């Protein structure tokens, strides 16, 4: 069979959804509008989880206690993303990072920015595992995860 006969049909699938946040996550995003990062504490294992959960996945008990966690934390790991793909929300290059906010027991995924990201080698000198970062807030709040605009290195 010739190459020309390997015909490809182009198509795209778009499907709309309306996904419920529920009370717990709603409250988290409402608090972001007030520049507070809230976690929930498990009364059994005492872990504080951010994002908050209405139940502890390990203990399988309701999590009722809200705890405000620090807006500063430690970089547990990060990735410099310079790879484009369909429907990507952030413009490349960007840094995705896992940040352990002070007062929490889980890694919080967000982005590190506020520094020159154009030269990767310079970025590597600037961002290190174990570094401290702090939240920088968006001036306009929409009640979503980007109300925290990004985390920036604490000098």
């Amino acid at each position, binding site marked *: 069979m010739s190459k020309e006969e390997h015909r490809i049909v182009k198509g795209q699938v778009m499907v709309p959804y309306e996904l*419920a946040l529920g009370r717990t996550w709603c409250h988290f995003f409402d608090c972001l509008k007030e520049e507070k990062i809230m976690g929930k504490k498990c009364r059994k294992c005492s872990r504080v989880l951010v994002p908050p959960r209405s*139940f502890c996945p390990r203990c399988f008990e309701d999590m009722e206690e809200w705890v405000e966690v620090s807006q500063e934390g430690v970089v547990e790991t990060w990735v410099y993303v310079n790879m484009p793909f369909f429907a990507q929300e952030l413009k490349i290059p960007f840094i995705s990072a896992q940040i352990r906010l002070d007062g929490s027991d889980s890694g919080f995924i967000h982005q590190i920015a506020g520094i020159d990201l154009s030269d990767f080698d310079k970025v590597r000198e600037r961002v290190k595992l174990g570094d401290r970062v702090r939240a920088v807030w968006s001036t306009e709040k929409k009640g979503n995860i980007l109300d925290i605009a990004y985390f920036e290195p604490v000098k």
Partner: protein
Amino acid sequence: MRRVAITHVAQSSGVESKESLMDFTYAINKEILDKAGLKREEVGCIIAGAADIFHSGLSCANAFDWDGIGAFLKEGSRAEESAFSFIYGCMRIMSGHFDTVLVTALVKGSENPDNDAITSFYGDPFYLRPVGLNESAVAAMQMRQYLERYGITEEQCAKVVVKNRGNALFNPYAHVKKRVSIKDVMDSERIYDPLKTLECSPKSDGVVAVLLASEKRARKLTGKPVWLTGYGSSMDHFIPGDRDLLNGQLKTAAARAYKMAGIRDPQKKIDVAEICEPYAFQELLWCEHLGICSEGQGGKLIDSGMTQMDGALPVNPSGGVLATNPYPARGLYRIAEAALQIKGQAGEHQVDKKVRTALAHSTHGFGGQCHSVVILSS
């Protein structure tokens, strides 16, 4: 083969939930574990019944579902259709590896596009999808053949809606609770003629969980175990034009289930049936294929009153899928309802007879491309 029992059942109220899918799932799993007096760590294996992205906007549904079903660091898996997840749970107990398995099916229909949009993606991108097929369109073609070939009337099909919607009024877990008349059904909009709006199932939120146990554990966990005695499933051709839509794979699936359960005369032996009827006429057609009545007699069956709540063989006392349609979870709903009838715990919609053997049926795909039949016994 080790015996498997359903020991406990929990299901969400039919009301659309404002909670996230994760919290919605957790509540029911917490409830069933509390009912059984078990901690999640004590369950041998946990299996989800969930369909992925088209039903949730999330790929790899088991990933998001894992926390809510209580499966952190537990042995587990996910099957896409909830009747599959049920039988997979049973297999795990039969194998001797596990004594308890928690099976949970979940979906939030209220968050998704309508069923017609979702089922259009069953179609391949080159042929069936471009020509506009979805589950309702194929069902309408199937219904037209059914009416023509056997002289079934549209009114007889409408009676199924009247019966099932009527039954749903007594089921606290049903979604759509509104009594309708034959005239209401006949006057409702012909969206896929001859199918009318009220003959098509809604789109519902639903989480349903069943706890399965080996014989020894089941007797410790409950005084009323419900035993799995039969299972059969079968797959038909993909392209509807390749098959006889009125003579599909349900007969094969049922024959397998009856053989395993040792049932020769289903009409006599089965006390109550929960049948998956996303479209009203399908309850009649499926009853024929299940041997509840003979070929072409579906219309007479509904006329006779036999399948009414107080009839000789009540079909869908829960209100069926016409009242509650959490699509990928609806198969496990049928199984859970059949189990409740045997346990005598169906509450207001408990049928007024001794239930020893119950049948639960699930189907998905264009015109019933795939069917599963489960036989449960006291």
